[in-house]
Structure formats: C-alpha cells, structure tokens
C-alpha cells in the first residue's frame, strides 16, 4: 500500500548505511536474559572480526550478569533474523554476511537467567 497524499510523496530513509561514518548497525540479543530489557544496538566497522564482537564488544555490555562469565561459547547457539546461523569467528562481520541493521541472537544452553526466571 502507499501513503494517501495530496501530491507525490517520496523521502529518503533516515538511517541509510552511509550516514554512520563507516560503521553499520548490528543488533544483538541474549536470549533468556531479560535483565537487559531489550536487544542492544552497536555501530561497528564491517571489517571487525566476529571474534572481536564476542571478546571485546559484548563483555562490557553484558558482564554485569552473573551468567555471562559462565558462558561456554563453543555451545552457544546463534540466530540471524530468527534462523539458526553459524558465524565464522575469524572472519569479519562483512564476510559473515552481516549487513546494515541485521539482528542476531545468541542462546546459552543451561543458562536461563537469575533463578531460572529468564531475567
């Protein structure tokens, strides 16, 4: 459908990739840990190795949670746009196929938040 308008209605989106100064947006959600109230948004260079996302970007964001230190990263299940997905840790975000405004989630088997409440 299209907007009902009195004349031609066409405007540029506000969030095109080129507006982020070389970064692209990546959204990350940690399943079963809703103490973090919503998925997080990160502006990241597409050349960043996936390993750096996990080892450098996520810890300051999530380490407040007692479960974070207990994560067995080899057992973590990843999802991209809701579908099971296997990232290559030593390849870049770009090589892993992550585009501007993609959303990924990770599930940490055995860890389901404070007292198992998914908090």
């Amino acid at each position, binding site marked *: *459908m*299209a*907007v*009902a*308008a*009195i004349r031609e*209605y*066409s*405007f*540029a*989106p*506000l*969030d*095109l990739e080129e*507006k*982020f*100064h070389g*970064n692209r*947006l990546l*959204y990350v*959600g940690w*399943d*079963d840990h*809703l*103490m*973090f*109230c*919503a*998925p*997080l*948004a*990160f*502006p990241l260079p597409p050349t960043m190795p996936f390993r750096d996302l996990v080892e450098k970007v996520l810890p*300051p*964001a999530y380490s*407040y949670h007692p479960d974070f230190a207990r994560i067995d990263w080899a057992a973590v299940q990843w999802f991209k*746009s*809701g579908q099971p997905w296997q990232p290559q840790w030593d390849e870049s975000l770009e090589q892993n196929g992550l*585009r*501007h*405004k*993609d*959303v990924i*989630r990770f599930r940490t088997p055995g860890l389901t*938040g*404070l*007292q198992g*409440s*998914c*908090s």
Partner: protein
Amino acid sequence: MDMQVAKKKLGLKEKYQVMTRDLDWTPTYQKMEDIYPYVHYEGIKIHDWDRWEDPFRLTMDAYWKYQAEKEKKLYAIIDAYAQNNGHLNVTDARYINTVKLFLTGVSPLEYMAHRGFAHVGRAFPGLGPRVACLMQSLDEMRHLQTQVHAISNYNKYYNGFHDFRQWYDRVWYLSVPKSFFDDAITAGPFEFMVAIGFSFEYVLTNLLFVPFVSGAAYNGDMGTMAYGFSAQSDEARHMTLGLEVIKFILEQDPDNLPIVQRWIDKWTWRGYRVLTLVAMMMDYMLPKRTMSWKEAWEIYFEENGGALFRDLSRYGIRMPKCAETIALEKDHLSHQAWCTFYNYTAATAFHTWIPTEDEMQWLSAKYPESFDKYYRPRWDFWREQAAKGNRFYNTTLPMLCQTCQVPMLFTEPGDPTKICYRETDYEGMKYHFCSDHCKEIFEHEPEKYVQAWLPVHQIYQGNCFPEGTDPTAEGFDPLKAVLQWYNIVHGRDNLDFEGSEDQRNFAAWRAQATRNV
C-alpha cells in the same frame, strides 16, 4: 448599565442553530474544493455535512462562560497550593517524578493537539465539526498553559523540570509520544479525527487522565489534581466529539467503513504503546496506588471499550484487532517498562528506583501470575547489587521499534520469556518492529515510517552532540555529550532516586516544615 429588556429565552436546539449553524455561508466567488482542498484525498465520502449532530450543542458564548469559570476555580487552587508550600505534603519525593513524566511526555501533546484541531477544523466544510474542533483546539491550548503554570511551581524546588520543550524534541523516550502525535498530525483531517478524536480521546484518554489525576489527589498533589481535573472536564466534550465523528463518517457512506476500521486498528495500537508510560507510572511510580494498570485496563478498555464497540457494531465496526495482544500484555507491560527505565536512567530527566518490599508485595498481589515468577528475581538481584554500591546501569543503547520507537522490550504474545522480534525488508533495507501491529502499520505506509527519527540511530550518526563536539577526540564520552545536548545535568537530573538532590532537599524541607530549626 444592565439592559432590562424582556426577551424570549431560546431553547438549547434553537440557540445552537442560531449561534452556530446560521453563522455559516455558501461561498459564491471561490470554489468549495479550493477552500477545502483536503477533504477528498483520504477516500472518505461525505454527502451531507448538515447531518452532523453536536450532542452538547455548546455555543461559543456558553463556551467562554464555562471555561472562564473553570479557570477561576483552577487558579484559586493552584495559588493556594503554591502559597502553602503544598509540594511538601506529597506522600514522598519519589512521587514528584510522575509530574516530571507528565510535563515532559504529556503536556507537549496538548500543544500538538491544539495545532491539530485548529488545522482539521479549518479543513472541514461542515460548520458543526468546525466549531467543535475550534473549541477543542482552544481547550488543548488551555491545558498546556495551565499545566505549565501549575508545574512551574515544582521547577522552583526540584530537578528535571527546567527544559521540557527541548526534551520533547530530543530525549530518547519522549520520541515515543512525539512520533505518535507527529504521525497523527501529518495524516489527513479524517484520519487525525479518528486517531486523536476517537481512538485516543474516547478509547484511551480515561486511562491517561483518570489514574494520573486521581493518583495525584491520592498522593497529596493538589496542583496536579486541579489542572488534571480541569482539563478532564473538557475531555468529556472531546470524547463526545470523537464518537460523533465516527458515527457521522460511517453514516455518510458504506465505503467509509474499511478505511475507518483500519484507522481504529492502527490508532488504538499506537495510542496503547504510548500508554506504556502510564502503566509503569501507576504500578511503580505512585507511592500510594489507586489501582493497578491491569485493573484500569479492565475497567476502561475491556468493559467500557467493549460497550463502545458493541454499540458501533451496528455500523459494522469491530473491536480493534490489537485487543487480543493487549490482553496478553496486561500482566507484563508495567514491569517490563519500569525495568527498561531502570536500565537506562542514566539518560532520563527523572529518577528511577527499586520498589520497596511493601511495594513488591502489592505488585505480587495485583499480578499473581507474573510478578514473582518473572520480575521479582530482577529486583532482588538489582537490590543486592545496589546495596554493594554496584547499581545497574545499562550503558549500551537499545534496539528500537521503527514504528512506535519504544525499545524492543516487549515479549512474544503469550511467552514473557522471549523478546518479540519482527522485521521486514523495504527498498533494500531492514526494518525492525516490536509487534505484528507495528509491522503492519509500517507495511501499509512504509514511505512515511522510513523517515522515523530514531534517537539511538541519531546518536550513532553523531547528530545528538553539542555543536563543535569532536567524537573522534581521545577520551570522548558519548553519554556525557548526549546529556549536554539534551540539557540534562548528569548526577542531578538523572540516575537513581536514592542519593539524589531531590531526595535530600525534600527530606530537609519537610523536616523544617514540622520542626523549629
């Protein structure tokens, strides 16, 4: 000198005819479509504007008379409240944060409503709706003014009141009410009337004003009670206008039904998402609670809205389809919302706090299905950590919904342990939503919502720092720069209530009010 002339008094209907409808005229040297260019493009068909019935039949002279009387009463109370240092009689200083939320999140909407009704009043060829819109436009301006006057008294003593106008345009959580109203005011005149006049005023406004205002009275805030009820006395007329608009449009042409139904579906949902702020206010921010959000929803939406939609079913209108989703959220909404503000209160112009044990018991009693199971563990953990000096502040910005602009905090309908993710592709870019309803609204008018000014994205684009800021400089602190751009003073206006200047001042002043110091 009084003129002592015996006149036959006009009846209500006669007076309305003479002083409203008879003021209209038919243009002769301009075409109707040039004078009223916006009444056709939305697809709504009106055949006879004279069929409009104004149930209150209020004429302008009576309008001024009653409004003047309301103002006199209101200012008498506000003056007395200020003169008597009434702010020290509120239950406790946490309460004052609800007034901050009101001033920053609700009062600017009054001003937008003033503009909106002036605009659509001008757009309608019928005199009845034009006069009703004129009155509502004036009402809304009065509401903004009285709210600013009444609340300015709090600004003399407490933080978080000093820049509401700028915050409305800049601060992340206020983009939720702002984008809601901007969406309405940029729609056509009929959609605006269904959006604000009907869906918001008639279906949802009771949930906004009645708990807020009754809650203010219950917590000793006579100032807020006075402006709130004074505004609310106009609200009954607004609600009636909203209902009248729906009936009028539907009676005019059967082709109008699907358009109106879609608007009702859209705007009930849009308005409900804005009311997320009210839900947490009722359940977490009022030291003395009047009723829970869930109870208010059941009375004012399920019972009252149910009656309304049964009445409208004779026109073919059905309950907004989001009602089912909302019913599943009512046990969770306020908890999820307050947790979110607890996460991000480093960037808010009001304080948040952990509910006390008494308050948690109240929450547990009001929400037996959800509070202890899903939310209490968070508060217990946060309380433990805060006691060790490790209060939780989420320092990474959240993902937002493209339509309602609320952080993606809502869970799957029926599963409060899973965040609800929805997405769509449009012209080569991904867009994300908190719900099926927000996704559907986007997909119907993507050209509109791709323009959304999402605060998180704007910060990352570098548009929310003071002029001259160099984000590449060593030691650049983005939060600090954003707060400067907001005009929120770090450590004073934001962070936890515990340890705040508001808390200290209130305690000291209250002590002075009860002792000779």
